[in-house]
């Protein structure tokens, strides 16, 4: 049905869709809704209205909203099996929706606060981090069942599969190391240190509430290197994902968020929220090749139009900061009408969709002309992210 490049399969992470039961199609849905051609649609989890908006990328219009569970955080589109999965953080469940017949949906109870998800390169194995429990669930989207649950994690945040799907790298938000899971054995097999212990000078309680460990392990397309920033440091660790050893540290700006890869894997872009800069790292030279102005509270980076441009999402200033990846120079800004969360670039690199949580909209940006071309209104309450099959999806 879909023949997507393996590169994208392994990184396909969509936003939420929690299914608390029935799927309610809005009045806008025409006839029997079916989204089998999932590569055509944009899926937008809405945290406050507990549903997922479906947007047709051909017309950039809202098609329907699929009701899910409470506080959907992320959605994954498993196009190989024609399913959508949403993590319902507040319900401790995931919803599994058959895209050919959305009224047929299942709800699976997992552990405490399932949040981030990652689809394996087989298109069937789904890893779900239960951030409140310190566990990771492995699901089969053939059987729609939880097949294993691994403990020993520390607030598991984003998850990353190896290219062959045999290993799962877990970013521990509550610790200083990456955990490595053998998927077939469903066992924790190693822990890769990213930084030394964090120094604090506090008497009694006070500092622990803002401890921020590792947000994400962003790997190169060949799976050799992983890039992991530590939220309390000013550096990025480059990790050999095969030997589980740290290769080097790269100094960044202050309070780096996480690395975002260009689609071609040539660069990693890291927003530094402490000093409001963006570090651009060459993955071949493993060094910073540019440090450019960013903005306040950056939550994501999307690239596109033949990887000539990067759009940095600034939640604090309601705008996109553009970077010309050829010149390695600032390329202007695009003001947004609401508070942006995260975005997704279409697989052809032409368009960028950004969820605007403050105004219940999705912004559509033409990455060739670098202009805001449309806003799609009333997509739901507090849209939190956007996901598209075959795209380089990410979550907060």
């Amino acid at each position, binding site marked *: 049905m879909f023949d997507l490049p393996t590169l994208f399969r392994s990184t396909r992470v969509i936003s939420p869709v929690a299914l608390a039961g029935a799927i309610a199609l809005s009045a806008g849905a025409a006839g029997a809704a079916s989204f089998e051609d999932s590569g055509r649609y944009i899926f937008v989890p809405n945290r406050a209205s507990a549903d997922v908006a479906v947007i047709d990328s051909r017309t950039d219009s809202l098609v329907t909203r699929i009701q899910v569970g409470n506080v959907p*955080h992320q959605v994954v589109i498993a196009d190989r099996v024609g399913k959508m999965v949403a993590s319902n*953080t507040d319900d401790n469940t995931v919803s599994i929706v058959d895209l050919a017949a959305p009224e047929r949906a299942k709800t699976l109870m997992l552990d405490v*606060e399932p*949040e981030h998800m990652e689809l394996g390169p087989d298109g069937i194995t789904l890893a779900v981090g239960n*951030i*409140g*429990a*310190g566990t990771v669930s492995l699901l089969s989207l053939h059987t729609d069942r939880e097949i294993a649950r691994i403990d*020993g*994690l*520390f*607030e598991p*945040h984003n998850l990353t599969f190896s290219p062959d799907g045999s290993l799962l790298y877990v970013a*521990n*938000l*509550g*610790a*200083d*190391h990456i*955990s*490595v899971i053998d998927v077939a054995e469903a066992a*924790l*097999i*190693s*822990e*890769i*240190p990213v930084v030394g*212990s*964090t*120094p*604090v*000078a*506090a*008497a*009694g*309680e*006070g*500092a*622990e*509430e*803002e*401890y*921020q*460990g590792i*947000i994400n392990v962003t790997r190169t397309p060949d799976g050799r290197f992983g890039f992991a920033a530590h939220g*309390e440091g*000013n550096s990025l660790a480059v990790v050999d994902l095969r030997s*589980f*050893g*740290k290769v080097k540290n790269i100094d960044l700006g*202050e*309070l780096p968020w996480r690395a975002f890869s260009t689609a071609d894997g040539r660069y990693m872009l890291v927003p530094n*929220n*402490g000093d409001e800069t963006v570090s651009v790292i060459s993955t071949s030279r493993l060094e910073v090749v540019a440090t450019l102005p960013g903005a*306040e*509270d950056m*939550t994501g980076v999307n690239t596109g139009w033949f990887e000539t441009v990067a759009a940095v999402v600034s*939640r*604090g200033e309601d705008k996109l900061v553009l970077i010309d990846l050829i010149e390695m120079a600032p390329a202007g800004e695009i003001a947004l009408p609401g508070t942006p969360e995260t975005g997704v670039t279409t697989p052809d690199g032409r368009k960028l969709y950004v969820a605007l949580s403050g105004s219940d909209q999705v912004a559509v940006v033409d990455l060739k002309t670098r202009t805001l071309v449309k806003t799609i209104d009333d997509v739901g309450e507090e849209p939190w992210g956007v996901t598209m099959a075959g795209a380089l999806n990410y979550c*907060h």
Partner: protein
Amino acid sequence: MAMALGSAALAAGAADPVLRVIAAVGPERLGAFGLSAEGLRQDCDRDALCAARSIVAGDARARLAQTPPPDTDRIRWARSLPSVAEVALLGDGRGLIRLERFGRKAGRELRAGLEGLAETRWDGRLLLDLRRHRGGDLGRMLRVAGHFTGAVPAALRLQGEAPQPLDIPERSWRAEVTALTLLVGPETASSAEILAALLRRHAGARVLGARTAGKDYLHRIVPIVQGWQLYLPAETVAVPGETLAGGLLPDGPLPPGVAP
């Protein structure tokens, strides 16, 4: 028993959480807590929390902290807890900023406070009130200091197992004040009193109030299991030209016009 250390031990921690704790603390340091690696493994089996409690029992300066439940809004930094608790213009034209934490947005809040004061009849004199500040992240404290001092190489020294000088980093903006006064007291602790010492030394600040708490050592955070962190006593901190041990002595009592 020969035990692998460093990253190898950390890797082994995936299978043995107690070994992870031992590696993080350093087997050679366990004696200081009246413990041994073998004894810990025997007593606690694979229970990392048990191992951490044994360490805490051996040193009153160590503590075990339960971390708040993870929350997406918290980790996204957007809703970071406030560091600046109060900004006020006093009757005689002085400005007051009460700093109570070194949160992730402390520098930005400080700048906003100063900009707010600049829009009033503020005369440029600033009282930075640290009397309720119990300390926090060392790196963030140094960044706050940099807004008043600019870059200062080797502004403080860490002494202990890994002695090293630490710099106050250059910042993208400087606090424009005509006179800086720091208000301190017995609750002013740890990195807050270090900040007071640094600003007295390098920003010409006057320190007024009462002797500070005198916590002159760091903790290093060791995650134990989900939801629990061990705060392990680590290096002592020295600010050349200042005495932190026993508490930082102020230059005088609280100034008039300031609430006790």
